[in-house]
C-alpha cells in the first residue's frame, strides 16, 4: 500500500471515524459521503464510533502470506459495531475462544509494514470485551 493511500484513511483506521446520516439515522464504516437510502435528502455528518460491538461471523486463518504470515493462526471476523455498521477485522484472542455474538472492543495495533525500511501502518483491531 502506498504511503499516501494509507495516510488518507489514517483517521478512519486509528479512531474509527465513519459517517452518520442524520435523516435516516444510519451509520457507515468505512465512511460514506452519500446515504444510499435517503439519497439527495440525506444529511451526512462525521461520526466517531465507540469501538464496541459483537462478532457476526468469523474465520480462522491458518495459512497466510506477507505481513500476516507470522500471525497465523488468527481470527478474522465481521464485527457489528454498536451503532450498527459492520467491518472486517482481526480479533486478537485464542482461536478456540471466539464465538458468534462475542462482545468485542477496539485496540490499537500494528496492521503491517512496508518491509524493514518502509512505513509502518497502525490502526484498529479488536479483543474480547
Amino acid at each position, binding site marked *: 500500500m502506498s504511503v499516501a493511500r494509507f495516510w488518507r484513511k489514517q483517521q478512519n483506521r486509528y479512531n474509527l471515524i465513519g459517517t452518520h446520516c442524520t435523516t435516516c439515522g444510519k451509520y457507515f464504516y468505512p465512511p460514506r459521503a452519500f446515504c444510499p437510502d435517503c439519497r439527495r435528502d440525506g444529511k451526512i455528518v462525521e461520526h466517531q464510533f465507540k469501538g464496541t460491538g459483537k462478532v457476526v461471523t468469523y474465520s480462522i486463518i491458518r495459512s497466510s502470506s506477507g505481513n500476516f504470515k*507470522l500471525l497465523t493462526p488468527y481470527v478474522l471476523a465481521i464485527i457489528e459495531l454498536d451503532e450498527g455498521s459492520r467491518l472486517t477485522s482481526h480479533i*486478537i484472542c485464542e482461536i478456540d475462544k471466539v464465538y458468534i455474538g462475542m462482545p468485542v472492543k477496539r485496540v*490499537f*495495533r500494528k496492521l503491517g509494514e512496508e518491509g524493514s525500511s518502509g512505513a*509502518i501502518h*497502525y490502526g484498529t483491531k479488536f479483543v474480547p470485551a
Partner: protein
Amino acid sequence: MVGIISYGAYIPRYRIKVEEIARVWGANGTEISRGLGVYEKALPDMDEDTITISVEAARAAMARRKVDPVEIGAVYVGSESHPYAVKPTAVTVGEAIGATPVMTAADYEFACKAGTAAIQTSMGLVKSGMVTYSVAIGADVAQGEPGDALEYTAAAGGAAMIIGNKDPIAEINHTCSFTTDTPDFWRRENKPYPRHGGRFTGEPAYFKHVVGASKLMLEKMGTKPSDYTYAVFHQPNGKFPVQAASMLGFSMDQIKPGLAVTYLGNTYSGASMVGLSAVLDNAKPGDRIFMTSYGSGSGSDSFDITVTDVINSDLFNRDAAPTVSALLADKKLVDYAVYAKHKGKVVMME
C-alpha cells in the same frame, strides 16, 4: 498546582518465565530468578510495539477522566525502542487520542528515565501557561541480546500521565534531577542490542544517581523518608530498588505497592511510571509519594507527589481502565521459541 490529571498503564498479555530463558542458555534459572528478584517478564504480541503500547496507555488515561483532547497542547514519549529512528512516536499517539493538530510533540531518549524527563517537560509547559494539558509517556519494548544478562529482565510495557493544573488527582510538589556522564549502558546507532558495563551499572551508576537525586529531594523539601506513604524507585530488577530504599531509609512497606518488576520485568522508560501507576491504583487522598527514576548514561529525576481529594471525586473514574495488578494478572505464558518469534529474533526472508 501542577500535577497528574489522569494516568494509565498498558502491559502486553504475553509472559516468559526467567527460568525458561535460563533453560535455553544452560543457566540455573532458579538462582537467576532469586538473584534478580524477577520471575517473569512481559513481551509484546506480534503486532505490538512502543507506539501501540503508548497509545493504549494514553487512551487508558483518557478513559479515566474527561479531558478535551483539543486542550492537550503537548505529547512527549520517552523510549529506547521507538519504532522509527526518524519519525516521532508522539505524533501517532497525538493522532490516536484526537489531540492533533494544535499541539507540539517530540520523542525523548534517556535510557530508562526518558518517561520522567517527559513529565518534567510537561510540568514546565503547564506551569508557564503554554499548554493546558501535556501527555507524558514512558514506554518500551526493551531490547536485550540473546544470552546476555539483560535478556532475563528486558520487558514490554508503559504508562502515560496527563499533566495539568486544573484539579489534579495528585499534586507534584517538587521535582529535581541528578545527572552526570557515566558510561554504564548504551546502544550505538543501527545496533539492535544495548551493551553495558556489567557490575559497573550498580554503585557508580544506579545507586549514585538514585541516592543522589533522592537525597537532594529530601534536603530541598525538608522531609524524611517516614513522611511518605509510598516510594517508587527505578526497577531494572527486584534487588536494586530494595537496596536503594534501604540506603535512604525507606521501608519495604513503602516500596512494595510500586514494585511491579517481579512479574513484569524491566520496562526501561516505562519502569518507574508503571510503578507510580501501581501506587496510584491504590492511593488515597493525602497520601504522599516519593519517586526517583534512573536512566543510564546517567541521571535520576526525583518527584515529591501528594494525592488530592479529586482521586475519589466524580471528576475521576479509576475503574474506567485496568489497574497494573489486573494487567499483570491477565497473562499468557509462552516458551522461548514463541518469545523469539514475538521479539523478531527469528530472521525471515523479506
